[in-house]
């Protein structure tokens, strides 16, 4: 088969198509600069209200679940940055169900670019960068305030935490979208895992019931987004008492869930192409 000469070619081709579509949307967004600026700032302010809630809590208390404000801010900042990245880059895959319903998915299938890339890049919302920047600011503040002795290893761990966190969230967005091939109205379910996960990960694991922590470690591996690596950075034991090497598994876990999400997506698309519904 003509396409089997290399796996790298389709990937490069897909990334190129993604960048083309995104660039066009960015250009079109920037033609209304004022509107964009207002929306980006508004986006930052809107998502900042979540952090304001944490600040309000800490106006009454010094510690939550044994964690001080800078430590909670580290959890908030790392999870929100990862989610912000994933949401900016491919959050639009959640519109898949709507595309199946209104038939516009067919249009994507006749273009010479991977469908996933087109779904993810279409209507690229640059304003979401506001949310991402707000999270980065909190993360930066927290990194400067937490009592961590910054060795090169810890710097790498912190960077890997954000990148694999974004990959895990991205995989969850994709899994949710793949699910919509079968249940088109179920866009909300993925919110439980992405936005719900984010709501959870911004608080210390000590706050939650052990079973819940087990669930997001072994079943939906959200704990690898920030809890485990952040606890390692802060020199704290995790509530499940896992061996310490587990804390470094973030990238591996991210790779595994991304692989699973890719398979689910393929299965969903194959199902769609055989049923057309």
């Amino acid at each position: 088969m003509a396409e089997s000469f290399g796996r790298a070619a389709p990937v490069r081709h897909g990334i190129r198509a993604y960048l083309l579509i995104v660039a066009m949307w960015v250009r079109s967004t920037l033609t209304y600069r004022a509107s964009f600026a207002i929306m980006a700032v508004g986006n930052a302010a809107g998502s900042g209200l979540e952090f304001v809630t944490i600040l309000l809590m800490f106006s009454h208390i010094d510690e939550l679940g044994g964690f001080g404000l800078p430590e909670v801010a580290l959890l908030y900042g790392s999870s929100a940055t990862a989610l912000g990245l994933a949401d900016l880059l491919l959050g639009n895959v959640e519109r898949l169900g709507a595309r199946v319903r209104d038939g516009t998915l067919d249009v994507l299938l006749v273009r010479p670019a991977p469908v996933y890339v087109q779904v993810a890049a279409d209507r690229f919302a640059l304003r979401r960068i506001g949310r991402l920047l707000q999270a980065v600011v909190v993360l930066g503040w927290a990194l400067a305030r937490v009592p961590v002795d910054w060795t090169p290893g810890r710097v790498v761990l912190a960077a890997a935490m954000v990148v694999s966190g974004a990959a895990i969230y991205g995989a969850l967005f994709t899994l949710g979208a793949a699910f919509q091939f079968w249940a088109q109205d179920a866009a909300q379910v993925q919110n439980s895992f992405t936005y719900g996960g984010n709501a959870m990960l911004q608080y210390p694991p000590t706050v939650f019931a052990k079973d819940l922590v087990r669930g997001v470690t072994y079943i939906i591996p959200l704990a690898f987004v920030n809890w485990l690596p952040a606890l390692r950075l802060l020199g704290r034991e995790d509530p499940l008492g896992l061996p310490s090497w587990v804390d470094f598994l973030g990238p591996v876990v991210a790779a595994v869930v991304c692989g699973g999400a890719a398979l689910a997506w393929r299965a969903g698309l194959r199902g769609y192409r055989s049923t057309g519904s």
Partner: protein
Amino acid sequence: MTADQVDGQVDGNGPEFIALEGVEKVFRVRRKAGRLRRVKQEVRAVDGIGFRIGRGEMVGYIGPNGAGKSTTIKMLTGILVPSGGRIRVAGIDPSKERTRLARRMGVVFGQRTTLWWDLPLKDSYELVRRMYRVPHDTYRKNLDRCVELLDLGPLLDAPVRQLSLGQRMRGDIAAALLHDPEVLYLDEPTIGLDVISKARVREFLREVNATLGTTVLLTTHDLTDIEQLCRRVMVIDHGRLMYDGALDGLHGIGGSERTLVVDLERELPPIEGVPGARTVKVEGPRQWLAFPATQSAAPVVAAVAERWPLVDLSVREPDIEDVIARMYTRSAPKPRTPEAR
């Protein structure tokens, strides 16, 4: 690949450009049966279709709603994977190498746009150029031709959502042709368009087919599209190919009839004794006479005018649904109930 080369016929370079053999598409649908129970049911949307289309041909593909037209187009473009049979377009299996084939074909859906809804038309075209990797001079040449023939100049800066249906369709057709496709599929390209837009679209398609040699397959509800564009027509009903040949032959085979509507001076008994025609309906002074579609209307009109007080008259072309319905009842030994429209 090798299997095709052994066949030797459909390599995309020979005269045969599109080839289908025994193509089937079966959907499993769940129907409600009572309050909670759902039963699975098989629907054979396409039920063993085979045809060949040569390079540069322009073929009309017609049939009632739900007959399987769009499903066939979706299989040809690689959107849907057939449940059985074999499809080759330019020697490529569309279901296996969708994106490779995508570069060589253009698709226009009458019901939904392939353009980017919120972007100006010219941005959509620019993106098409980059996505299909169209060389600059080819793009320029094609865009200029489309802008001129389809009168797109004033529309280029407007976001697609602001265009009227006719303008959008013209924009869509241009987008489908920017990359010099070898084949153009059009699914109901004139649906909902006004008379002028329809004429412009037809004229353009004829031009593209004649000058560029683009193979064109179009589905339509409008028999005039076929009459003005296609020498060959294929009729599908209930997922089966009922006819494949010249348009005139369709009228002959279907035994289809045209209708002469006459307004007489006053109410009279049904007109009788006109050779080749019979009166099918009387309503006050107005009467309807049916005669074979293959026959000229002139002798019928002359015969009526000679013996009855004629005020006004008009000739109605056979309705495509009628033609197909007739054909269906003739060819199927056990007529099923036609699908609800």
